């Protein structure tokens, strides 16, 4: 195994354990890893931006292909950076005005088409479905998302949740019933999201532990085991030192 991979395995394991040490409590090892993380990712972003934007999107097209029109976005970008020059900071407004203006303009028709028309189109369905051999009938199958029963449930769900977020109408009488239905639907959806989020977080943990298990291998020099011991030792020493000043969790 190449030496840089072995060193890499040790570094990666160490940093992973430093962050896991937050579970014990907020400590210097965690803070060190956290700041290292921010620093490295900012550095990474800057390098990538330089390589992609300056080299491939600006320099090559302008200098080699003579696409001088690209000086316009470059100058708009420069205007954005005037924000750091207090006297000229107002110039950055031009850049933001342009970006926000274009963004808003682009968003309006696309949002209407994708999130309003498309969603209405799929909700508005006939309640009776053609069943081969039976003709027009009401289907009760819950597992078929296109069945009549599910069409009604979806219609009720969409309408009641929409109604729940009405703010210029008092929720009384029939409105109260609809709003209550809406909140129940909302809670079920939140429950589904909850379940899925639990799944996601557990997957992340599984992924990290898989890597740690890989690094217990002898070919890496078992960094996981050694560093685990070392991290625990450091935490113990640190908490001993701070023990005269007891702190909760």
């Amino acid at each position, binding site marked *: 195994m190449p030496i840089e991979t072995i060193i890499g395995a040790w570094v990666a394991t160490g940093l992973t354990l430093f962050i896991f040490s937050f579970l014990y409590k907020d400590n210097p090892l965690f803070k060190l890893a*956290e700041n290292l993380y921010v620093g490295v990712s900012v550095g990474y972003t800057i390098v990538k931006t330089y390589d992609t934007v300056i080299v491939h999107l600006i320099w090559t097209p302008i200098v080699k292909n003579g696409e001088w029109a690209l000086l316009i976005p470059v100058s708009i970008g420069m205007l954005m950076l005037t924000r750091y020059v207090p006297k000229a900071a107002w110039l950055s407004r031009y850049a933001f005005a342009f970006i926000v203006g274009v963004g808003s303009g682009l968003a309006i028709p696309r949002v209407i088409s994708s999130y309003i*028309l498309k969603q209405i189109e799929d909700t508005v*369905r006939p309640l009776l479905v053609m069943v081969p051999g039976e003709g027009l009938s009401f289907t009760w199958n819950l597992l078929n998302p296109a069945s009549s029963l599910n069409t009604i449930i979806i219609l009720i769900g969409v309408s009641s949740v929409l109604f729940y977020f009405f*703010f210029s109408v008092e929720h009384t009488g029939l409105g109260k019933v609809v709003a209550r239905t809406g909140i129940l639907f909302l809670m079920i959806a939140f429950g589904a999201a909850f379940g899925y989020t639990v799944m996601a977080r557990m997957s992340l943990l599984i992924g990290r532990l898989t890597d740690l298990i890989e690094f217990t291998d002898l070919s890496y020099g078992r960094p996981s085991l050694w560093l685990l011991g070392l991290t625990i030792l450091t935490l113990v020493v640190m908490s001993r030192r701070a023990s005269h000043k007891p702190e909760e969790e």
Partner: protein
Amino acid sequence: MRVERQGWKTSVLLLMAVLIQPGSPVFAQYQDQTKTTLSPPQDIRAFDTPSDGGDSVTLIWAPAAYDSAATKYQILLSEGSAVDPAAMKVVAEFPANQHYVRESKWPWWTRPAAGDQHQFTLRNGRGVELKSGTAYSITVAAVLSDDRGIGMPVRVTPQPNWINWNQINNLVLALLFGGIVLYAIGRARTKEIFLRRIPGLDAVDEAIGRATELGKPILYLTGAHDMSDPSTIAAAVILGRVAKRTAAYETELLVPHRDPMTMAVCQEITKQAYLEAGKPDLYKDDSNFFITSDQFSYTAAVDGIMLRKKPAANFFMGAYFAEALLLTETGASTGAIQIAGTDSDHQLPFFVTTCDYTLIGEELYAASAYLSREPVQVGTLLGQDIGKGLILCILVAGTALATLGALLGAQWPQLFLDVFKDVK
């Protein structure tokens, strides 16, 4: 950027020609040199596809008795005015029981022919290159094994168009909704608009009352975003209300921040609130304080405050990310009343299960509009309500009409339904 004025005029003229006199080309039969038993496709019409950038043409022809999977239709194309169909290039082939107008996505207002007619739109790409402004001859041939019936070639010139009529419903909706919002804001500027009371706000008062009874402080968080985010603005507005109450009850208020700018704004708001409550002497500048902008370090610090000071009530307003759970869990373990309000939908489930009251999504904005009475905020809320009301009506009426249409086998409900479809 090159603007072709000439092209614009011709395209409008052409469009009008298509709309006014459909089917003007001469319908004729064309007999192939080889003897055929298959009659050639009838009533062939070709025109520049409306509502496009000028790189396609559309063909319409009548259905025939031999329309079946076994028979094939071929689309033949050549540049200029070729008369010899043998010299034309086959650019597409498909079974004869496909490509009807009814299968296409055209809404009724742009549909060029009745639903039972055949339709084929020939586009640029995949071996075909149509140049806008160039004249082409195009026709359809029916093919069954060795038999081939070729229709009369028709002349057509693709042209770029200036309006996509298929999307006109989108434009109408955009204008309508834009008008509603502007109207509602204008109305909110002159008149008092009714907004229903948000139940969460009662819970806020209750929580502050309890904190006073217990003589413990109140913790208020404004979220992860800065002042350019609407949720932070809403959080700041609600902070004004909370601060007014804490001033009146003389309860301690703690507002740890993640963004220095937000802190500065919130200090002003808190000061103002204490002034309005008539207790400016009780105001402390350091009730708003900056901790750090790092997500987890901030969280750990706030958790520490919760454990040490044991606030009687915790407020979480604004935008939150993964740190939400860490905060609310610690808060719950100290026994505080917790009230949350966020539009970060991915964190809402956790707030609902760990807090006593949660303002869900737009409720946060509504609460802030309710408190601030700012015309633009209130008007937007009203405008959105009208928009939602309209959509609600469309959903119910649409379902009823679609069902009726299915029951009666009628087509007229489509006149309504097509308007609310994304048809491109």
